[in-house]
């Protein structure tokens, strides 16, 4: 009995709803339409997000594909005449150096350019094209005894005229070269082999890549053992006390701290207090290790937690000590999960830029770092530095470097997903 029924006993029986009537049909149709609209809205949200990713990749690939291509122009050099009859043997072994200093390649190059392309011909070639002539000659000394054709990198203007359009003068130059068949486009090996530079046609990512590699190794060597051991302690042994609480809060807090704060820490502690070398991969690795460690701790804890207690009890039951239980039984079972978390953490560290800017890993170095204390830069910072360049030629190089970075990150992430699917057991 409801109150309403008691107070209004003489109410007429409620009229039965006419479910098939036009009013109700209309209302139902409206509800279904709204259902459809809502569903489409959700689909649109997912699709637009995915399209944005596709657009981003499309723009990067569109801009960057050109970065892997370099434009070369031919230069015919009559070497026997220019060198005064140097024989190939004089360019071999330990005689190379003496011969090279006697024949003045730079002058030979200048003369050949002037002969083939006229007074102002040097504008077609990159500033250091003559070093490529020297390198090709060193690699293939046979050339010195004949009139040889060399393919040398063009200037940035011609390169851009070949790819996307440039100043009218450069366009005309390019047309002229093309008409004579003196220009070609080849895969830019230099982009993978060279380091930073000032001429966009000559720069490469090897230096930054090597810097990234060294930094990542330091990060992994520091963060992985510390992270896994801390996770083991917290998950398996830590007594419930004040200290454990503080450790847990610290780790969760570190995982949420913006990355730039780690850069400030690196600057104040590693550079200012400990006086470690600025711009070095060592400091970058230390900073990123602090940033990656909490990620590894959290992933490892989840992986350890997922190992069922029956395993531990069985091991304890046959007489294993608590340490043996963990190191002989729990950890081997948790390794796939730990690896997945580690790879994801490392991928994040590999793409990180801001903290490394803080500790000065933006060194302009034209040679790759040789050790952990050499000034170095890393791929993401190199991308940032190139993106700031005024020269339009750097746009394609920036995008090309982004493509390389993305390939690495996607491979790492895909590998992590593969590991998870392949090895992780559901208990």
């Amino acid at each position, binding site marked *: 009995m409801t109150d309403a029924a008691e107070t209004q006993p003489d109410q007429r029986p409620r009229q039965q709803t006419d479910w098939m009537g036009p009013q109700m049909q209309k209302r139902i149709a409206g509800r279904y339409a709204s259902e459809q609209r809502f569903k489409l809205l959700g689909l649109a949200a997912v699709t637009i997000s995915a399209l944005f990713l596709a657009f*981003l990749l499309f723009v990067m690939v569109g801009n960057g594909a050109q970065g892997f291509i370099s434009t070369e122009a031919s230069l015919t050099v009559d070497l026997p005449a220019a060198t005064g009859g140097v024989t190939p043997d004089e360019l071999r072994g330990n005689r190379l150096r003496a011969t090279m200093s006697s024949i003045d390649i730079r002058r030979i190059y200048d003369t050949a350019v002037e002969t083939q392309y006229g007074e102002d011909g040097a504008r077609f070639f990159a500033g250091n094209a003559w070093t490529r002539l020297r390198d090709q000659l060193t690699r293939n000394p046979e050339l010195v005894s004949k009139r040889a054709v060399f393919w040398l990198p063009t200037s940035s203007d011609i390169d851009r005229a070949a790819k996307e359009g440039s100043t009218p003068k450069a366009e005309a130059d390019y047309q002229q070269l093309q008409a004579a068949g003196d220009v070609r486009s080849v895969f830019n090996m230099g982009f993978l082999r060279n380091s930073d530079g000032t001429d966009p046609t000559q720069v490469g990512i090897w230096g930054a890549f090597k810097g990234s590699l060294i930094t990542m190794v330091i990060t992994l060597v520091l963060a992985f053992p510390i992270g896994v051991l801390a996770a*083991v302690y917290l998950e398996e042994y830590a007594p419930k006390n004040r200290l454990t609480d503080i450790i847990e809060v*610290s780790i969760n807090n570190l995982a949420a701290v*913006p990355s730039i704060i780690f850069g400030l820490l690196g600057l104040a502690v590693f550079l200012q207090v400990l006086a470690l070398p600025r711009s070095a991969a060592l400091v970058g690795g230390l900073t990123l290790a602090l940033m990656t460690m909490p990620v590894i701790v959290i992933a490892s804890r989840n992986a350890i937690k997922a190992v069922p207690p029956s395993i531990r009890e069985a091991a304890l039951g046959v007489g294993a000590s608590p340490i043996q239980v963990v190191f002989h039984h729990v950890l081997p079972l948790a390794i796939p999960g730990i690896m997945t978390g580690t790879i994801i953490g490392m991928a994040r560290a590999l793409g990180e830029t801001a903290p490394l800017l803080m500790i000065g890993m933006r060194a302009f170095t034209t040679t790759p770092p040789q050790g952990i204390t050499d000034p170095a830069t890393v791929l993401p910072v190199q991308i940032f530095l190139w993106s700031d360049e005024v020269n339009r030629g750097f746009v394609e190089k920036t995008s090309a470097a982004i493509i390389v970075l993305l390939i690495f990150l996607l491979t790492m992430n895909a590998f992590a997903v593969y590991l998870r699917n392949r090895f992780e057991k559901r208990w």
Partner: protein
Amino acid sequence: MTSTAVIFMIFGLGLFTWVYARSRANRFLLAGGQNVNSLPSYHGWYAALWAVIPAVAFVVLWTAIAPALGSFAVLDNPLAASLPDDPFARAAILAEARLLSRNPDLKVFSDAAQQLAPLYKAADSRYAMIGGLAAFLLCFAGGAYAFTRIKPDFRARSRVERVVMLTLLLASLIAILATLGIVASLIFETIRFFGMVSPFEFLFGLDWTPSTDVVDGKATGDFGAVPLFWGTVFIGAIIAMSIAIPFGLMSAIYLTQYASVNTRKWMKPILEILAGVPTVVYGYFAALTVAPALRSFAAMIGVPNASSESALAAGLVMGVMIIPFVSSMADDSITAVPASMRDGSLAMGATKSETIKKVLIPAALPGVVGGVLLAVSRAIGETMIVVMAAGLAANLTANPFASVTTVTTQIVQLLTGDNDFDSPMTLAAFALGLTLFVVTLLLNLVALQIVKKYREAYD
């Protein structure tokens, strides 16, 4: 003999000790009969730890104090009597002499350093020799002591396990050390900054024109950070969230409620790729593609003074970056709503969308709000997108097409180049960093609290 070489040799000896002690312990097993407490390898580890740990600890300590011992030896020499009394000049000459002793090709300016260098060389090599010998002695003594203890009933395992446990504890303590390092470095530099600029001016001042000039210990530049705070909130919490919340939430709803298993299997990783793209790539994309497009759009609809570095460009791209973050948080909290609530609503005749809007979302709301707060904390700490796309002008404007600057942009700006730790500009970066740290920390704490409370309600 360098300390690195000594450490390597000690580890070699440790390996030898391990093998030898293990084979010795193996004999008990082969002899059989008695009650053997530990496996042979534990005896090996026990002996190796005794051989390595004290010796390595000594080498580390010795490396720290040997230079000082060397200096004392040099100062005791009659040649050092001619050094100036001024402690600074004296220290400078000594430092120069030491560098010279290590690298004879070095050019030095003072004759005193030239004279003292051989002394340094002799003293340093003498102390390195003493240290190396002592380390080896310790190594042998430790190993020998451990050998004498190898007996069938010796509890080698529990000793070794105690060391392992200590290592685990030390590894966990590094997290505390890192947190303390962050807090200490930020607070220490911020206090120095507030010695030059009043905290009140910093937190409530409306003008941001930093400069390095200091007059009478007070900075002359304007360090009012309100335009920075506004820029950060405008880009990270307003523009980015107005993209990330609807898209993230609707994506989560679609993927959890409507999408087929196959679609979900493919779309979820694709959305997660968005979160895995490095921020420098987003920044470049914002600066190269989005910002120019928005600028011409603004010019088309007649917005005056549209800047090529607009708040909108940075905010939009940041919003897209945050979508997967919001989406996965919302996903978690929607799936955590008990199925009985959803089934009940569907059984009453509600359509799916009505169930979602009137049952699932209200029930999942605390989790979603917590997720959004975490997303905000990530957005305001985000650096590269704003550095590359948002600009440097500290404007206090609500025009999304104008250029604004953020806390993180200014930190990068202030700390680029040489850092002089006495300049108010460098110190201001640390004050901004502390503000950012405190705000993100609070946001995270509040968000986690909300999420936790809500989880308890249904478990």
